[in-house]
């Protein structure tokens, strides 16, 4: 029962994001995409709200959080009409199979990330018990390997679900990945639909779902930050690639990415550079990054104030260019995903049908930037092989997603 309530708590987060339906772009999407975007927006709103609660010493309880939920839900334009649903296409069976297989993998403990046990779960659980962001826990020196200054969005979402269920659910945290995969696919399809048409948007959405489902299973990310990060990244890239009015939604999604994982901050920087190169609008690019800068800056100030800066304080480490060959080789080996580079083929082969390279420029630049940034970060470790072997498959998921979005954009 606790597990079911916990998952219900995750679903309830959507209520905080219904306010995103006021954005004109979102208003014109089909119901599935609107709910998916409301869920992603809800995660950002909820995390910011809980951070605010922690700053002003309002405890995270069912009562305080549900009152806030009602207030945010009341701001939502619920009576507006949706765009018509996508027509039934042949890919629905494959999509259902992907979801069913992923559910099976999660419920039989085949995709669990150990980091859920090591730090994502304990942080969420501790925030729930403390009814705040537990700075004593985060700054306890012997817990420093738990990455205390990692951005707080996912543990705060977990703490919210735990408040609803009156307890932490490890199985619920795993099952959340299925909801995130579903939301990522629906958001992509909805955002791409106007540019690509129903049939092509659906076909690429199914391919994206298959790509991510395999990537998640292979790199075992259930319960960790990657599925949440990929949801935000996909919304940001799809909004900027397929829509001319996608900046506001992308800014919210970029803020979510930057507050989910350290890699999210690098993603924001890469997207901003790609946006400036392709659109040549510097002021808009700054506006695009502004929410992410504010959130990450606030979190870093909070961490510095409470003396638990860790990962972010390592920015000045030296680069070991002598390791370049070793890093490239090890990353290339991990990039095969144990399937003869099939995920990369899934992103690259559709370029055979490319017609609109101009639309694909932004995601292609982001793709290149993500691969380069992965190598750049690995070069900062003196002995990077273990790090690459344990993380490259996860880190490269973002690059795979952008490659596929670029292929879809080029097919227009």
């Amino acid at each position: 029962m606790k597990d079911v309530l916990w998952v219900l708590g995750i679903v309830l987060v959507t209520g905080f994001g219904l306010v995103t339906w006021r954005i004109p772009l979102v208003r014109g999407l089909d119901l599935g995409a609107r709910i998916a975007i409301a869920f992603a927006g809800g995660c950002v709103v909820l995390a910011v709200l809980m951070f605010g609660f922690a700053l002003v010493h309002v405890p995270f309880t069912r009562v305080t959080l549900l009152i806030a939920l009602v207030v945010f839900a009341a701001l939502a334009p619920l009576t507006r009409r949706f765009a018509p649903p996508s027509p039934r296409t042949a890919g629905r069976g494959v999509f259902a199979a992907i979801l069913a297989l992923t559910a099976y993998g999660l419920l039989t403990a085949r995709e669990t990330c150990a980091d859920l046990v090591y730090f994502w779960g304990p942080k969420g659980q501790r925030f729930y018990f403390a009814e705040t962001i537990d700075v004593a826990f985060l700054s306890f020196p012997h817990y420093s390997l738990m990455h205390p200054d990692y951005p707080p969005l996912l543990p705060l979402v977990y703490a919210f679900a735990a408040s609803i269920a009156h307890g932490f659910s490890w199985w619920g945290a795993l099952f959340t990945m299925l909801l995130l995969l579903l939301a990522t696919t629906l958001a992509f399809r909805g955002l791409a639909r106007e540019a690509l048409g129903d049939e092509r948007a659906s076909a690429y959405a199914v391919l994206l779902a298959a790509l991510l489902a395999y990537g998640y299973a292979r790199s075992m990310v259930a319960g960790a930050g990657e599925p949440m990060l990929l949801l935000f990244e996909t919304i940001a890239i799809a909004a900027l690639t397929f829509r001319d009015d996608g900046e506001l939604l992308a800014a919210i999604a970029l803020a979510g990415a930057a507050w989910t994982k350290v890699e999210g901050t690098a993603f924001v920087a890469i997207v901003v550079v790609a946006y400036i190169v392709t659109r040549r609008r510097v002021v808009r690019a700054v506006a695009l990054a502004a929410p992410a800068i504010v959130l990450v800056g606030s979190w870093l100030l909070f961490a510095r104030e409470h003396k638990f800066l860790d990962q972010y304080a390592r920015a000045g480490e030296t680069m070991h260019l002598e390791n370049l060959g070793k890093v490239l080789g090890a990353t290339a080996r991990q990039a095969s995903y144990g399937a003869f580079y099939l995920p990369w083929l899934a992103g690259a082969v559709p370029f055979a049908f490319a017609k609109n390279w101009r639309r694909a420029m932004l995601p292609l630049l982001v793709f290149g930037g993500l691969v380069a940034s992965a190598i750049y970060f690995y070069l900062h470790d003196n002995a990077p092989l273990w790090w690459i072997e344990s993380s490259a498959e996860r880190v490269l998921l973002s690059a795979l997603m952008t490659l596929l979005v670029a292929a879809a954009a080029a097919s227009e």
Partner: protein
Amino acid sequence: MRRAERAVLTALALLLVAALVGRLYTRGGPYFERPETIVDHVGPGKHELRDALILLPKVRPLLPRGAEVTCFRPVNGWAPEGDTVNFFAAVGQLPYQNVVPPFTAMFHVRRENLAEYVVAVRDPFAHPAYKELAAFPEGRLYRVQR
């Protein structure tokens, strides 16, 4: 949308689904039984966290709230300086207790500074200052004698 494009996209998706099936299959059986822990089929072999994830919920009711406890797999009967796997598993599994690092139960620590409770995963803990309180197939619970 051209038929060839649709066929290629569908074929790629099906190949990835097949790879997903293969991945799930190679995590090992049993395939249709409810797993005991969330790491039961992460790999074909036994996961390093599995014993701790079974043992810690069993010792949890035996520990008072706020008690100082550490968790590790003993090395030759003694507490190691560090055991990231079992220590961090205990942080998540014992939320009502104060989980401290394994070195707080090492042989050179003065008796008054020793962690009050030790959860020893798999192997017995031989420190003479500790008395065994409970034993389970996955490990034992000890309490320091002051």
